């Protein structure tokens, strides 16, 4: 596992930050981001897939009322792929819509999906060598989050009560305390040691958090990040294909 990894640094892999608005569709947006990233890594072509198709064509047909990332992957498998976000755009309201999957050309598809081992070392290895994955966390602290690395105790952020899916796009270590003070952060006392962290892509718009992203402490299952690490697989032809995440 490399010391750092950030898929945002490789052009065409991570799509722009999405905005779910009044629709509880984090699960669909995280899954779409996962497919987009893996498609970009495998085929060297940026793609943006239809989140609305995932909402309209799921088993329950009421995607704005919540779900899990595996619901999205099952829909992609059942429909043999996804249309582009441009053809089948996101509407962002809670009213159920008719499934229009057959109307548009598929721009990306998956072979299957898997749940990874629930330990952070295995997740880091998979992330660095295969690509971004979806995780489901306890989002309680995100309501008031502005920036920086969240390092919460399990009493503050219960790892068993996970309720929000996001895309894991990288990891790293924060600078030493001197470096952070030079950046001009807040004046409260800071840890003196570098903090290992995960970089996560949220779906609440680019105005939220660190331009739509946030960071969680890596190493003690902060906010339940290891509970449901799930990813699609876009290619099974070369089973041992490993790719390199930019440091």
């Amino acid at each position, binding site marked *: 596992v490399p010391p750092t990894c950030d898929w945002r640094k490789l052009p065409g892999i991570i799509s722009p930050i999405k905005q779910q608005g009044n629709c*509880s569709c984090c699960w669909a947006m995280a899954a779409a981001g996962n497919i987009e990233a893996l498609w970009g890594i495998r085929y060297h072509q940026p793609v943006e897939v239809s989140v609305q198709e995932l909402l309209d064509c799921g088993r329950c047909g009421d995607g704005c009322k*919540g779900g899990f990332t595996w619901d999205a992957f099952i829909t992609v498998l059942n429909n043999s792929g996804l249309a582009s976000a441009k053809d089948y755009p996101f509407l962002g309201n809670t009213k159920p819509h008719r499934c229009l999957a057959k109307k548009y050309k598929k721009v990306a598809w998956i072979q299957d999906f898997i749940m990874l081992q629930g330990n952070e070392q295995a997740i880091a290895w998979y992330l660095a060598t295969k690509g971004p994955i979806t995780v489901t966390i306890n*989002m309680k602290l995100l309501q*008031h989050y502005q920036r*920086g690395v*969240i390092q919460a105790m399990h009493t*503050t952020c219960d790892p068993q009560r996970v309720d929000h899916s996001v895309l894991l796009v990288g990891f790293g270590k924060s600078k030493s305390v001197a470096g952070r003070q030079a950046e001009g952060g*807040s004046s409260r006392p800071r840890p003196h040691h570098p*903090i290992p962290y995960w970089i996560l892509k949220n779906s609440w718009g680019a*105005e939220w958090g660190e331009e739509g992203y946030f960071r969680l402490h890596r190493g003690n299952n902060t906010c339940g990040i290891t509970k449901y690490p799930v990813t699609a697989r876009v290619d099974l032809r070369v089973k041992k294909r490993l790719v390199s995440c930019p440091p």
Partner: protein
Amino acid sequence: RSLKNQDPGPQPLELKQVFVLFQIQYNRSYSNPEEYARRLDIFAHNLAQAQQLEEEDLGTAEFGVTPFSDLTEEEFGQFYGHQRMAGEAPSVGRKVGSEEWGEP
């Protein structure tokens, strides 16, 4: 120069001023004075909560005003969380006739 003439520097904003800035930044308006008062209360509670989170955080995270600062924790969970089975592991059916049946 005497102390009296010195610039006191930036003063802390009143809660209502901060709330006005929040409303402008995130384009919020409320249907009636009662709703405004309720949201102001929630906003004040959330600012205190954010301050407490920042004190308790062991990392470098900063907490404060966000687009969700006028929502209760329940509303936030309802609008932005999973809703369906929130916090619960999905039920996994056991195979009929599995050896696991009957075991603790």
